[in-house]
């Protein structure tokens, strides 16, 4: 069995004449947290949408290996809001459970408890804070018990407490629940604390893939490492 649960090889995607992804290959290990970093417009969201099948018309190969014990291989939090704003958290989860063929309301409660959302909150999602919305989206993604979670900038707009809670939740999902996570973020200091692998996406290409040992051995930190690729280092030094 391959050590990689998700592999994308030589992914290319164009929109008209504009090439968004030139030649992207990533390799996500079982049970790891793969961080993807890149500037705005580098193609992170496009790559995630290709991995989840939301986008067609690309070239390259995406391979997902999964065990039969999981009901769905991949689940994702990509777009926003991607929730039914007129419905409560429980109702959104209930709708999701119909989709997944889940009849047990206990699983809905469990997913909401995991992300620390109250089942009894009847407010529609449009009244939720950003942090609560992000947590509900994670709960929706967890409902199908996927092996792989793909999260596109989940910390965007969160306050410091929300960022810490998210980090703790991702660590829990990975280390306790055994989920493999593919996450993008601009908050490099947060990514640094959780990732086991890292991909740097620059101008539509993965310019470097780092394993956990590479990350540990690199003493300069993710920020300096990324800036070396993004613009050849610190402009002001």
């Amino acid at each position, binding site marked *: 069995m391959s050590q990689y649960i998700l592999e994308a090889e030589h992914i290319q995607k164009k929109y008209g004449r504009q090439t968004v992804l030139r030649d992207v290959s990533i390799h996500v290990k079982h049970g790891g947290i793969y961080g993807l970093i890149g500037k705005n417009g580098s193609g992170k969201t496009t790559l995630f*949408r290709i991995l*989840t*099948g*939301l*986008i*067609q018309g690309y070239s390259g190969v995406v391979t997902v290996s999964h065990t039969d014990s999981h009901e*769905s291989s*991949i*689940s*994702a939090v*990509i*777009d*926003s*809001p*991607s*929730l*039914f*704003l*007129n*419905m409560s958290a429980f*109702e959104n989860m*209930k*709708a*999701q459970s*119909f*989709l*997944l*063929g889940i009849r047990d309301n206990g699983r809905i409660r469990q997913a909401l408890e995991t992300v620390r959302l109250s089942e009894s909150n009847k407010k529609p999602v449009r009244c939720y804070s950003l942090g609560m919305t992000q947590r509900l989206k994670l709960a*929706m993604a967890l409902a*199908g018990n996927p092996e792989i979670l793909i999260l596109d900038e989940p910390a965007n707009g969160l306050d410091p407490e929300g960022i810490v809670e998210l980090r703790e939740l991702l660590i829990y999902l990975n280390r306790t629940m055994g989920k493999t996570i593919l996450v993008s973020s601009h908050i490099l200091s947060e990514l640094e604390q959780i990732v086991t692998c890292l991909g740097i996406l620059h101008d539509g290409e993965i310019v470097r893939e780092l394993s956990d040992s590479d990350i540990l051995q690199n003493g300069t930190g993710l920020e300096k490492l990324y800036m070396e690729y993004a613009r050849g280092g610190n402009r002001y030094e």
Partner: protein
Amino acid sequence: MNNIIKNDLYRFSKSILLYVILSLTIVISFSLTMMIRQDIRLGISVFGNLTAFRGIDDIIRIGILYQRGLGFFIAILLSVLIGQEYQWKTWQHKWIANKSRAGIYLSKAVLSSAISAAVFLIFQIVVLLSSSQIGSILTAGYAAMVISGAFVYAALGAVVCLLSMLIKNNIASIIACICYVMLSETPASVIGNIGNLSETASKVAGWCIRHSIYGMTTIISSAPVSPSLVVTIAINALIIILLSTVIGLMLFRKYEL
């Protein structure tokens, strides 16, 4: 596909707009019937003969002619419910749950046709029950008319679904669906005028109009409906549903969700 239909049904059931539209349908049909029963004649000069009801038959015909009211409700309801998926980007849940684009589209098409027919039937049932003339109204001809009308409204729902699924902008799809309903008489007039060019053109134009949704409602509302006509209208409506669904499926497959 059952799971997608259950998901959509549950979501629709949580929509306030659905209950508003159903309530409006009941209130309007009941009010108009009561006005006729109480011999209240309400003529609004701006609308000319549209509101000059003479009897229950006129109320029944109003329900059949979708462009006179019910079609407007259906256009708004379906375009909003479907457009919200684009607006709130909730398609991804269905797709990531390994549901096919065909299944996603078919679920919406089935429910759209069902809801559209249901709104029409609710209107007719309320008119019938509140008319106090059930015995005289409930004839074979009336039943044939209602059955034909239900098929026609189902076809209307399928076409509105097609427009809503293919137009990603919610506002634009609402406007397009309303325009389709309210202005459907215009293309019929244009086709009719084209038919004046020659005898062949006249036959083709007449065929097109008779087999359009607008044409079918005009036929049902203007003359007694025989059982054979019911069958013809049902088949015609099913063909329209099939065509609009096939076209929608082919185009929706290429959409990025």
